[in-house]
C-alpha cells in the first residue's frame, strides 16, 4: 500500500480529535464563564466533542491497518522508531477510549463534577497533544521529523531508543495503577455517605 493512504487517515483522525478538543474547550468556557449558554452552545459543543472523538477513535484503527499495510509487521518490530510509533499510538487509543467511556457513562453530567470535568478536559487535551507526538514520530519514520517528538525528552525519554522498562519497573507501574484504582476505598465512609444520584447507572 502507498504510504499516502496512511498519511491521509492519520490527517483525518488528527482533524477529528482537533475538533473534539475545540468542543471541550468551548464547553469548559461556557461552563465556567457563560452559564446562560449551557443549554445551547455548551450542549452542542459537548456533543461535537463526543462525536468527533468517536470518529477519531474509529479512525485510529483504520490508521493501524493502513500503517501495517505499508510496512510488514516484522520490519516494524525490528525498528525502534516504528515500535515507538506503535507504542504511542496504542497509548493514544487508550486515552481516547477512556475519554469515550467516561462520556458514555456520565454524558453531560460530567460537567456537574469538578473531578470528572477536570479529568475529562485533561484527557481530551492531553490525548490530542499525545497524538501530535505520535504523528511526529511517524513523521520521523517518513524522514520528515517535526520535532514535537522531542517533547517526551523533557521527561528523559529518547525516542530513538525503543520504549521499554525493566521488569521490576513494570510491576511498580501496575502497582501504582492498583493503588490509584483503590484510593477511593480508603475514603469508603465518605463514599457511602455520598448522594446516590452520582452513580452512573442511576443517572
Amino acid at each position, binding site marked *: 500500500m502507498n504510504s499516502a493512504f496512511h498519511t491521509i487517515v492519520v490527517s483525518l483522525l488528527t482533524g477529528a480529535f482537533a475538533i473534539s478538543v475545540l468542543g471541550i474547550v468551548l464547553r469548559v468556557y461556557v461552563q465556567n464563564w457563560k452559564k446562560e449558554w449551557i443549554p445551547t452552545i455548551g450542549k452542542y459543543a459537548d456533543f461535537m466533542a463526543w462525536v468527533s472523538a468517536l470518529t477519531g477513535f474509529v479512525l485510529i484503527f483504520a490508521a493501524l491497518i493502513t500503517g501495517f499495510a505499508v510496512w510488514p509487521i516484522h520490519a516494524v518490530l*525490528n525498528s525502534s522508531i516504528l515500535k515507538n510509533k506503535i507504542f504511542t499510538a496504542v497509548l493514544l487509543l487508550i486515552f481516547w477510549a477512556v475519554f469515550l467511556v467516561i462520556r458514555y457513562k456520565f454524558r453531560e453530567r460530567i460537567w456537574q463534577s469538578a473531578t470528572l470535568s477536570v479529568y475529562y478536559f485533561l484527557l481530551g487535551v492531553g490525548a490530542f497533544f499525545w497524538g501530535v507526538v505520535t504523528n511526529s514520530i511517524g513523521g520521523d519514520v517518513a524522514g520528515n521529523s517535526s520535532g514535537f517528538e522531542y517533547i517526551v525528552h523533557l521527561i528523559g*525519554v529518547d525516542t530513538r531508543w525503543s*520504549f521499554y522498562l525493566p521488569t521490576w*519497573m513494570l510491576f511498580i*507501574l*501496575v502497582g501504582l495503577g492498583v493503588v490509584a484504582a483503590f484510593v477511593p476505598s480508603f475514603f469508603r465512609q*465518605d*463514599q457511602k455517605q455520598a448522594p446516590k444520584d452520582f452513580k452512573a447507572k442511576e443517572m
Partner: protein
Amino acid sequence: MKRMQIAVIYVLIASLAVGLTGGFMSSGVVQDDPDRNIVIPDERMTELKVKAAYNGEDIFWRFDWESEDGFYHDYLVYENGEWVQHGASPVGPDLEGVYEDRLTFLIDDGSVEHFNSAGGFLTVQEGMRYMTSMADAEEAAEHVDRNWVRKFLPETREDPTDWRTVKEEEELEKLVDAGYFLDFWHWRAHRSNPVGHAEDTHLLEDRNADTGDMFTTNWDDELDQPQYMFDPDTAGKHAMDWNRVLARDYTQDDYYYLGPDNMTEFDPDHDWQEGDTLPRRPLEEPTGSRANIFANGVWDDGRWNLDLQRAMDTGNPREDKIFHEQGKYDIAFAIHKNATGTRWHYVSFPFTFAFEREADIQVQKFEGDTPPWDEIEWETFEMFYPGQITWDHAINPEQHAGAEEVKKSTPISEAHTEEEFSFYGIESEFRDEILGQWMMTMGAVSIFVVLFSIGVVRSARIERRDQ
C-alpha cells in the same frame, strides 16, 4: 477537603509514574554479554576531522581525532620461565590496553554498487568474526582459509548474503577486471606507523593485503620461542618491561615496537627476567604495493594527528583505486580506539571527495611537496558504534522498513542521522530481548492508565459527599 486530598494523591501517583517511567525508560536490557560476543562501548559516538590536498602527483590526507595512547600492541611477556602472549583481538576492549589504535577507510570510484549510499555496511554480514552469529571455526576454515570470517563484498558470493558461497577465483578476477573492489587504507598505530607507513589493502572476497610485506609474527614454532628481540646495540636494551607497559610509561620516542632498525635474532641464552617483554609483531621494511601509503602519526595530549600520502596513480589498478584530476570518489571512515579490534570500531556514513569538483571533501590543489595545511579547512565527520547491523538486514524488507530505499541506493544520510544509527546499532544486538520487554511495557502502561482512570472516576463520588 477530601476532594483536595484525593486530588493531591492522584497528582502524586501520576507524577511518580511519569517520573519513574522517564527515569528508567529504555533501560534494563542493554548490557554486556560476552557469551554472545556483546560488549557495549562506553561512548556511542566520536568525531574525526579530515582535510585533503594534492599536487598532481600525490594525494595527502591529514586526520585528527581524540584517543588514548593506542600505540601499544600484542606483546610476549616472560612469565615463570615461559613467553606468554598479552594483547589479542578480544570481545570488546583488551583489558590490559595493549591493542593498537587504527584509522581505516574504504574508497571506491563508483564501481561497487551501493557503496556510495550505504558505505561500510555493504561489507557486513552475519557470521563474521565476533558477531553474535559468528561462524564456527572449522566451517570458516573450510570456506575462507581462516578460522573466522572477515568483511567482504556481496558480489563475491554466489549468494550475496551467505559468506560460505565464495565464487571461483576466475570469477573474482573478472570482478576485479571490472573494478569491483574497494581500496582499503589501513593505518595501524603499532604495526605500520613506526615504519612510516599505513598498510595498503583492498577488499574483495576478503580483506586482502596488497602485494608485499609489512609485519610478521615474532614466534618460532619449531624452537617454541620468540624469533627476535631488541638489539642492545641500537635499542639499548634486550626487552621492554611489562610493568612499564602497563603503566603506559613508554612514549612514541621510546622503542615500544620491534622494527628493522632495532631488532636482532632472539638469544635464548640471555638471562631473561620475569616481566621482560618483546613485541609480538616485528615490523619489516614495507615492500611492494602494500607499502604505497606513507604515514606519520603523532599522539599528543589525548589526540592522534596523522598525515597520509600516496601516489594518485600507484600503478596497481587491480589493488588500488587510481585518482584522476576532476575525479570524484566515495569514502567511508572507521576508527578503532580504546584497545579494541574487529567490529568494536566507530564508523562514518559514506562521503565523497573530489579533485576540483564539488564534494563533501574538497581535495585542494597546491604546488610543491608539502600541503599548505593551515589554509585548508577541517571537515568534521560524526562516527558511531555500528553494533551488528548487517547488509542482509538492511536489504530485507521483512526486517527493515527502509529496505526498498537501500536497494535503490538512497543515501543512508537521507533516512537516518549518525546519532540515530548509534542507537540502532546498539539495539541491533538485543532485538529479541527488546521486543519482549517493549510488549510488556506497552501492556503495563496501558493497564496503569486504565486503573488510574477507574480510580479518578470512583473518587468523583467523594467529591459529591464533600459538597
